[in-house]
């Protein structure tokens, strides 16, 4: 029999050591995986983790992929700190893309500086509106925000699919299920000529700094933390649980919506049936890998972005399926959770029962 025994106190250093250890273990088992597939493990790891970064374009791509991850994860982390489990950032991202993209399509003929800000605001409102549904149901009827937000993800994906197959389909698009390409006035400016690095990356950095400020310095951050750790103490102090649920869904929904409109107004440039390769879900891993801390989240977002690029690199370089990305992300989360458990518990082998001594 295997038992887990509480250690009593977690060593402080390991709280931050665990993500590093998890990354290390992922590398070791990734190497073993590549070896089992018949590749030289070191070379394959090189292709996966290093080759994407050996050009300026590659480094810019890393930032492009990290942008939606960081935007979503920063918002989610605020909720997770307060024990509010928004699992549906992916759906809020999609609805942000829909709302902001809708503005872009409605103002297709308009060429003004205000189009882009309007799209961004609409994107955030779209994500917030989608987040408001689980928040309302949770505060009013005590539903599980985990299930509601998760299920709404699929509703959002189908809504987007219907729009681009139907009313918003490009009239000159040869019947492809895509919207028109956004006008220049509705496209995010490129920050680094010759790459796809766009203004959205600056939004992500601003979100990281803003979230750090809220968490570390403000009374709002303190209330979220207290309610997340000990709801009864929060109630005693007069902090409102419902308020934190709303706050968490508005912030995370708004940022996820922003990441959605940033994606379609940036790298994609139009509405397609799929606007995200699961950024909203990967952001959950990012949030935990970054220890729910904004700066940690920034680093974790870069690492996870690398796993997307690495997956593409091994697909091209070694002919491996793109699913390798998912395997690496999964391993990382698995090892992180395992490390976290083993920091707090030790494993005991063997049964607890001893033979009874007759009296």
């Amino acid at each position, binding site marked *: 029999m295997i038992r887990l025994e509480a250690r009593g106190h977690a060593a402080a250093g390991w709280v931050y050591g665990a993500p590093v250890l998890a990354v290390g273990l992922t590398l070791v088992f990734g190497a073993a995986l590549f070896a089992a597939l018949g590749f030289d493990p070191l070379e394959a790891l090189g292709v996966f983790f290093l080759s994407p970064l050996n050009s300026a374009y590659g480094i810019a791509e890393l930032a492009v992929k990290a942008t939606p991850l960081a935007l979503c994860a920063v918002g989610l982390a605020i909720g997770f700190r307060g024990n509010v489990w928004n699992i549906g950032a992916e759906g809020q991202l999609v609805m942000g893309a829909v709302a902001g993209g809708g503005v872009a399509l409605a103002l297709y003929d308009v060429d003004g500086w205000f189009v882009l800000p309007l799209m961004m605001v609409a994107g955030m409102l779209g994500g917030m509106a989608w987040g408001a549904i689980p928040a309302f149901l949770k505060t009013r009827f005590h539903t599980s925000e985990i299930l509601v937000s998760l299920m709404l993800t699929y509703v959002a994906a189908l809504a987007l699919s219907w729009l681009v197959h139907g009313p918003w389909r490009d009239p000159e698009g040869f019947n492809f299920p895509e919207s028109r390409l956004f006008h220049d006035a509705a496209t995010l400016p490129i920050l680094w000529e010759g790459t796809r690095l766009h203004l959205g990356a600056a939004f992500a950095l601003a979100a990281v700094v803003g979230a750090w400020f809220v968490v570390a310095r403000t009374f709002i951050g303190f209330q979220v933390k207290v309610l997340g*750790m000990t709801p009864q*103490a929060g109630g*005693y*102090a007069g902090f409102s649980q419902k308020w934190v649920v709303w706050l968490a869904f508005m912030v995370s929904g708004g940022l996820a919506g922003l990441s959605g409109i940033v994606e379609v107004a940036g790298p994609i440039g139009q509405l397609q049936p799929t606007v995200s390769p699961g950024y909203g879900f990967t952001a959950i891993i990012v949030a935990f890998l970054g220890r729910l801390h904004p700066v940690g989240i920034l680093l974790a977002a870069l690492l996870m972005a690398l796993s997307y690029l690495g997956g593409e690199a091994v697909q091209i370089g070694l002919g491996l399926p793109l699913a390798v990305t998912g395997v690496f992300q999964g391993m990382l989360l698995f090892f992180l959770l395992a490390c976290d458990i083993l920091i707090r518990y030790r494993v005991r082998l063997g049964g607890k029962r*001893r033979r009874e*001594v007759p*009296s």
Partner: protein
Amino acid sequence: MTDAPPPRLELRAIDKRYPGSHANKTVSLALGAGEIHALLGENGAGKSTLVKIIYGVATADSGEVLWHGQPVRVGSPAEARRLGIGMVFQHFSLFDSLTVAENVALGLNAKESLEVLSRRIVDLSTRYGLPLDPRRHVHDLSVGERQRVEIVRCLLQDPKLLIMDEPTSVLTPQEVDKLFDTLRRLRDEGRTILYISHKLEEIRALCDRATVLRAGAVVATCDPRQESARSLARMMIGSDLVAARRTAQEQRPGEPRLVVENLSLSASHPFGTDLENVSFAVRPGEIFGIAGVAGNGQGELMLALSGEHRTPVHDAIRIDGRPVGRLGPRDRRDLGLGLVPEERLGRGAVPDLSLAENALLSGYGRQSLVRRGMIRFSKVNDYADRIIGAFNVIAHGRRAEARSLSGGNLQKFIIGREILQNPRLLICSQPTWGVDAGSAAAIHQALLDLREQGAAVLVISQDLDELFTIADRIAVMSGGRLSSPRAAHDTSVEQVGLMMGGLFDLSDEAGVVHDPA
């Protein structure tokens, strides 16, 4: 049997360390047949650890356990029960929604039918003077009756050694007398009882021998009947205790600061106690005590007073004449309310946060620790340091996590945090429960000082000694109702005890308590 039978249970040089504490230091103890043996010590002296080792919940690092002279290793409570060791815990493990018989059956893994078992329960409970109806549901039972269920469940296994952990903390004085009768009968049958307590008078009244633990080590073994409460206390604490002293009450006329009028409230969770027409008033410069066995509505009253549970009738609760029934804790604090909840770790303080952050938890408003949404860290730190200094909180500074403090020091911190906000009205629930004697005296003194300064103080407590030490007036809570108050000098522990059992008559309008004497 040989001429000199070995003791029933003998502990030899038991040693147990936990990270950060040496819970038992080479403790030796011998329990004979037919004795009631007291294990006396303050909270944190190592009583619980020792008992856990005997009952198989914890394992000693070194030392021997001998049962009838034979070395044994007790690996689990099930093994302890097979040896003939039974234990009645301070906190009951009963299912509220099941009947007495079903609860007993669950505890016994019995193969017999419920009918047979019920008959055995009735037989046993009448034999030992513990009347119980096996068909009743546990949620209908009083705390004293629930304890009987636990005792009967133990006795059905015919234990040779019965361990009782602070059994009287939840009982009225009259119930305590009945329990003692039962325990004496069990002793006279040749059973051994290990009686854990820090209540000196009880031990003197009941026990044949006493082993005194202090800081994990045995400091004395004595016959408590030959000792005075004072000498026992000295053994237990290691020094003479300076008790808090109350000055004679000067009548301060004036409007009551807190008025509760016909407060009725249904409990927020099933099996809670509904409040029924609770009315009382607390004046400035007085300590008003609410006595009662835990679980009679005190928790609900506390939540209603703090604002965590709003009352439907806005002016059922008034502070300085202002209705506050529908205000939350934040607004009530702004009116001068200070609160010390019963659960100090997990409600009064966040275990994983530092003392500084815990100072911010309730002090944010009246200490202006927040400006324009920003935490003013230097003021927070300063406030935490002031609490630690003024109330002699022993901790590794303001950065220490709340969970790292002993119960007494954390309670001093919480009470200090509330008092330094200069409350016009302070409400404390069980202020010294589980607190060492030194801290308890300091807490009592702080409450009395606050009263001197003209604040109104409400103390909800199970500890009658405490209420008679500090309170000016005492009312009793039972079954969600509150008796009318009596001046503390005008009533006795016995009278209050009878009221705790629910013997107060609320038939007349004024709710006058009939003199039970």
